[in-house]
């Protein structure tokens, strides 16, 4: 657990361009508390995850109690409190992909790369995630590598692609 009181005192780094993006969104939403989720989307997009000091900043800006912000963040799968790695590999485990072997892909990733869903490699190069359905059922099984959808993936091919990504840095 991090210290609560010290968190809200911590100002975000003023020169960080990402803070400006959040500030712009806050302004656009008129600092309305009900825009919390929209603002969190923006923050997650620019940070890749939601660090606690960013949450503290948003909580202050929208005049929302800290626990209310934290509870909303942890409710939605889209929001993540932890960094997800330089590269991300998201395996769709929707019904169509599941029927066509999404689990086999996950098993292969675990045996070849040693990472399970939700884990990030020790060098922070790769994070493995699962999605409940990315809506590409016609292309099952589908994997999203760094925001790029790979349809009808085969085992060898996808593992090679992941290894290439990790090596490319």
């Amino acid at each position, binding site marked *: 657990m991090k210290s609560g009181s010290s968190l809200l005192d911590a100002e975000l780094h003023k020169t960080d361009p990402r803070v400006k993006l959040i500030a712009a969104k806050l302004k656009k939403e008129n600092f309305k508390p*009900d825009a*919390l989720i929209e603002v969190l989307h923006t923050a997650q997009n620019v940070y890749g995850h939601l660090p606690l000091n960013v949450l503290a900043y948003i909580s202050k800006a929208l005049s929302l109690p800290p626990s209310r912000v934290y*509870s909303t963040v942890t409710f939605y799968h*889209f929001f993540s409190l932890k960094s997800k790695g330089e590269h991300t590999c998201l395996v769709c485990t929707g019904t*169509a992909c599941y*029927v066509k072997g999404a689990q086999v892909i996950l098993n292969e990733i675990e045996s070849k790369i040693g990472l399970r869903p939700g884990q990030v490699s020790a060098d922070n190069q790769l994070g493995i995630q699962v999605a*409940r359905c990315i*809506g590409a059922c*016609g*292309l099952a099984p589908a994997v999203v590598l760094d925001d790029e959808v790979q349809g009808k993936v085969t085992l060898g091919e996808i593992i090679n692609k992941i290894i290439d990504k990790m090596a490319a840095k």
Partner: protein
Amino acid sequence: MNRQDLKTIIYAEKAKVENNKYKHKIGVCCGAGCISSGSEEVLKKLQEEVTTRGLDHDVEIIPTGCMGPCNQGPLMKYLPDHTIYQKVDCSNIAAIVQSQIIDKKPIEHLLLFADTREKPFRDAREDPFFKSQLKIVLRNCGQLNPERIEDFLVHDGYQALDKTLCEMSPEDVIAEIKHSRLRGRGGAGYPTGLKWETVYKYVNDQKYVICNGDEGDPGAFMDRSVLEGNPHRVLEGMAIAGYAIGATKGYAYIRGEYPLAIKRFETAIKQARKMGLLGTDILGSNFSFDVEVRIGAGAFVCGEETALIASIEGKRGTPRPRPPFPAEFGLWGKPTLINNVETFASISPIIINGGEWYSEIGTPKSAGTKVFALAGKINYSGLIEVPMGTSLREIVFDIGGGMQGGGEFKAAQTGGPSGGCIPAGHLDVKMDYEALTNLGSIMGSGGLIIMDQTSDMVDVARFFMEFCMDESCGKCLPCRVGTKMMCDLLQKICDNRATQIDLDRLEELAIYVKETSLCGLGGSAPNPLLSTLRHFRNEYQNRLIRHEQKDQIEVPSNIQV
């Protein structure tokens, strides 16, 4: 813009189409499925090819919405003849342009389903995949550019809104929708006209229209395709609803997993505002309406209407007990109408063609058509639209082209994690709300997953239970603890560690959770379990061990002895 201005624009656009300088029109499917198969490169390459050959003035190229057979993508359609090419890649574009446009002869072996059908059809509309379908909701998907409002206007776009504002009273609109017997396409099938009338009757200075685009069922992508392929149609439906119930503000709640749908819908809103089809005094009437997009953040339970409202209000998406229903006490406590994407997309055809016309399609109790997302162990998967009452056999064997690899049909899962399965013995079931409910399943939002003999039904039930356990919001006890316990018990059965006592407990819990949960998620979470128990009980029984075989008391792994 007033009514006359709209007419002028449409005439001008239609004239443009009629005096078309283009001799040829090629659509490239830019639905999410085809884009991930590489259709954007195809689009680029095609443009280059046409330019290189100096055909810019003869060939019009449009990016379209979903054409349907998603697993054959990227798809390319030569529009005057409805000739569809499948699995197009950059290497065979030159050949297609040469053959189709210059030589006026399609390349047979690249046509849709050429690799699986004895003889593919030059006019794709003749193919059984399309022939058995009736497209109302998806009518213009795959034919028009979803990012151009003008394309939509040419295809009778906003004509229904024009008609409602100028010729109909709110009561007339509601009467027409009631007459059509349209039922909510989100899953429960509540009569749409009745819902509208209820909200209309509550007197309030502010009411809201919400479009539920939080399509969370794994294996369903109908709403996504409609939002991506024809966003203006949904927008028009929302505006008509706003007029009918007396709302001036609408929200479209679209799941965050669908960035393309969000982008296209936002584009559509901007275009409609610019043309005065959203905003104040629409088409010269005194009706004002505007729409805002809200992006979902990954919670299946937000498909439940009260949870969706909480989410729009920026809170945890936890449902609350009903009554009061959103029609009385909805978004920010105001009367609110919530309908699904597909429901809104059905509105304008009903207004234009009349409720009578719509009510004659389908079955007596379930009128109209239903869009299904067909997937699983089937030859042709993708997006289809059929009249209510079409048999499952027709969908699987005529449209879907039969089982993949000559497998044997075992069951079809409808309604996703809230639904159930239909076993082979009921292949001739006429798919409508009542028939599916009688079989212990539900229509749901339209996910249709076909399974063959290799599918393990206990594992399927466990898969869906795990889904519901993960997606339970945790507010009410039966769903929070019940789904976890049922999931553990199902895992125990899958691992051949369970006894008859475990199965009895499981069944008791299933009925308890179904009847006592606060919202529809918990209320329907046991459905896949109960349905597979009903049709495939032997698969459960075969896995049980006799009580005497239990040689030791199990200690949960997280406890140290």
